[in-house]
């Protein structure tokens, strides 16, 4: 069915890519025809974004071939792929907010006459394209003043002006309202009919099935199947996305105790949480699952005191409640956070392993603010042994370590001096399998000592395998709560997609 033929616009064959030993793509295949909307699906971390980045020219594959428009291609840069007619529209619009609509549409493609911008002709062209997209807006408005849906259309207009052959949309509807989504779909169908190939990436399965012609599912960096959308149900897709057999996943016995360490009630925040509530007991692992934008990270940051809360209650026995919460007080009260973005939010790349690991609990090795070096070194080295850190020396820069070892340093930061509550936001992202299992082992060691763990994760097996209970977030609210014995992966995914029965 999908062998290469004259109508194929894009053929990706056995693409592989690894980052620092983490295999992101292990043999991805994808065939997109001219005049086709092709959905690209998969769980978080299945390799979708790496595949898109490869097409955008932002990532070079390790092996495999890409045939585009009848010729074998290799993209060295973004410009390379754009020149061949590939436009990628990322989740967060890439418009310059201060520039006007007209300026944004022609950005990087300005027609110049000795540096003088030939405004008029371009405005005409822009006007035409926008009209084709059913958009009647003032070209002089700034991008910042547009609604999310309008911004998306402006980006599409820009792609059309550059004579795009393949349009890639990454989660285009994540921030759109229903009407806007419908309008976007209408536009996409028209573009398809004009012969443009479209790759559509989205977590919203119903939506995907209704708009696309075919779909391809990735799992663990491999293509596991291509289907005709009209003949496929959401259940089929979810089955394909999970596919694995759940038995090999880490299992543990519960260490949960009576004492409540964290009580959250009706938590509503400006960052998007809406009435979240739960209890977390000492020694318990509470898994929080949700798709991108469901409020996982927002919950982690609110509980830690990193972001202000709107209303509701966050209660821990040792830390203040309400507006007095902040990371400094949280850390003092025995609460630790392993943030989602390790390199930008957890690491001091210029500093040593010792400095990085000892930054969370300085009172363990200082007296009157003076560092007792021997004590500090002793603590860090002992912890390095406990987390099985692989490094040349404790004075080495953290930047030189692999992702897994960096994460062990960050985890060790909060294991120094026993945390009462650890908030782990996607702790195994970008971490190789070996380190992953060691992190799981450390988590269960911690709960055995009575530490409560709030485990926010984008990986279903991780959540199910480790947690005593699981809550599922959807659009900032708790969509479902399960004890991990009575939930299947399908049920969890359905709840996360807003389809709770």
């Amino acid at each position: 069915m999908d062998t290469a033929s004259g109508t194929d616009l894009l053929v990706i064959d056995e693409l592989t890519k690894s980052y620092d030993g983490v295999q992101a793509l292990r043999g991805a295949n994808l065939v997109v025809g001219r005049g086709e909307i092709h959905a690209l699906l998969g769980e978080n971390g299945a390799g979708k974004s790496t595949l898109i980045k490869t097409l955008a020219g932002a990532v070079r594959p390790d092996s495999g071939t890409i045939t585009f428009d009848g010729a074998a291609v290799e993209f060295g840069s973004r410009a390379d792929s754009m020149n061949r007619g590939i436009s990628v529209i990322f989740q967060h619009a890439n418009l310059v907010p201060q520039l006007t609509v007209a300026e944004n549409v022609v950005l990087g493609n300005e027609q110049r006459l000795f540096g003088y911008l030939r405004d008029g002709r371009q405005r005409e062209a822009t006007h035409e394209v926008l009209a084709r997209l059913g958009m009647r807006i003032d070209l002089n408005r700034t991008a910042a003043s547009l609604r999310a849906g309008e911004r998306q259309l402006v980006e599409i207009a820009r792609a059309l002006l550059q004579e795009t052959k393949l349009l890639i949309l990454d989660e285009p509807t994540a921030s759109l309202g229903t009407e806007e989504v419908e309008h976007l779909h209408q536009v996409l169908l028209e573009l398809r009919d004009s012969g443009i190939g479209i790759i559509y990436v989205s977590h919203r399965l119903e939506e995907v099935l209704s708009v696309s012609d075919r779909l391809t599912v990735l799992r663990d960096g491999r293509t596991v199947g291509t289907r005709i959308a009209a003949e496929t149900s959401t259940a089929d897709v979810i089955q394909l996305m999970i596919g694995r057999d759940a038995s090999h996943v880490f299992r543990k016995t519960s260490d949960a105790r009576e004492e409540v360490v964290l009580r959250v009630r009706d938590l509503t925040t400006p960052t998007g949480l809406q009435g979240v509530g739960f209890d977390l007991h000492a020694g318990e692992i509470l898994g929080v699952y949700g798709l991108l934008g469901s409020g996982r990270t927002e919950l982690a940051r609110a509980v830690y005191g990193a972001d202000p809360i709107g209303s509701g209650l966050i209660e821990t026995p040792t830390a203040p409640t309400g507006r007095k919460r902040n990371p400094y007080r949280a850390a003092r009260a025995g609460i630790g956070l392993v943030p989602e973005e390790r390199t930008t939010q957890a690491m001091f790349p210029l500093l040593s392993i010792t400095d990085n690991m000892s930054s969370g609990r300085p009172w363990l090795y200082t007296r009157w603010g003076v560092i007792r070096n021997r004590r500090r070194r002793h603590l860090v080295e002992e912890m390095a042994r406990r987390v099985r850190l692989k490094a040349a020396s404790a004075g080495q820069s953290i930047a030189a370590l692999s992702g897994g070892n960096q994460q062990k340093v960050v985890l060790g930061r909060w294991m120094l001096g026993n945390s009462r509550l650890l908030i782990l936001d996607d702790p195994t992202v970008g971490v190789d399998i070996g380190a992953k299992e060691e992190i799981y082992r450390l988590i269960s060691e911690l709960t055995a000592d009575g530490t409560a763990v709030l485990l926010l994760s984008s990986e279903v097996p991780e959540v199910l395998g480790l947690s005593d209970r699981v809550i599922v977030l959807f659009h900032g609210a708790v969509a479902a709560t399960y004890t991990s014995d009575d939930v299947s992966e399908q049920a969890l995914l359905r709840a996360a997609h807003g389809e709770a029965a």
Partner: protein
Amino acid sequence: MTGLERTAADVVPARRSSIGSGLGIWFARPTSKTLVMNLGILIALSVWLSFATSQFTTSQNITNVLGQVSFIGISACLVTPVMVAGGLDLSVGSIIAVAGVTAAKFVADAHWPLGWAFLMGALAGGVIGALNAFLIVGMKINPVITTLGTMYIGRGLANVVAGGSPVTGVPFSFNDLATSDVGPIPVPVVIFAVIALVMIFVERKTILGRWTVASGGNQEAARLSGIPINRTRVTLYILSGLAAGVAGILLNSRIATGDPNSGTGFEFDVIVAVVLGGTAITGGQGKIIGSIVGVLIVGVLNNGLNLLGVSTFYQYIVQGGVLIFAVGVDEVFRHTWGNILRRQRFERRSQRQAHGSN
């Protein structure tokens, strides 16, 4: 060696690079390379001057150079951590004037004892530092804009209080602080040395020192690991104001009055020395010892040019040229070094992967 676990690949001879040893780690730091290079420049400059001029190596001239650099040095010891924490302090030059005028007014008009008057001068510097801290940390105004603003405000205040000209009616003893010696060493040099030693201790051995580098290196990570970044920055700005205040009373004591126009351009001398010494303008990197060497280079250079009879106008040009040259060479050096290290690391990693697949 350190008790850390070693992988099989770690003991492959090819992996035994300099990264593992203590000295290797020290030299792998960009600040250390800059320090070594700057020490080289300082020594070369001194050796050249000792041949080119007859007076350079006289003890009187050396004392003279140290005396001249001590004012800038005192301030640089505190501006360095401010910049390492990701900030900037342009107000130090005006604080010189505010501190001097305050001290002189307390002696001349209020007839306070000298010691107390000097203390008030230094504290006036601390007050401006606190104002900087309030505006930058509390009101979240950009540090460049804030301290540029307080630089003008301070200069204006000093002139208003002094009436536009040096304070009159100051006793001769006002001059004693800066001109007396401890043994063979002038008081400003002693104070510079003490402040330098204390600040190097703070930088290396106290939690404030760690918080400083961490806040400048990655502010969000610092906040999320429970570091009180606001308290750290407030402390540093107040201390920077105080240090500039101390430099101000010393400098004005030397000219035996409170001069509202003293310290004009001082902030740039300080920043030149700090940046020359290897502190990153973007924060997160820099050492006080580096800044001290930077101060000495600037001091020796100016002294040498004076001894060679080069006019002040040319001195400006040379000073600007040296700054750009030193920082430029450093960038090139750092990049090529960085690339070599990166390449080595990459090769090691692929080697390890090859081993791992056996």
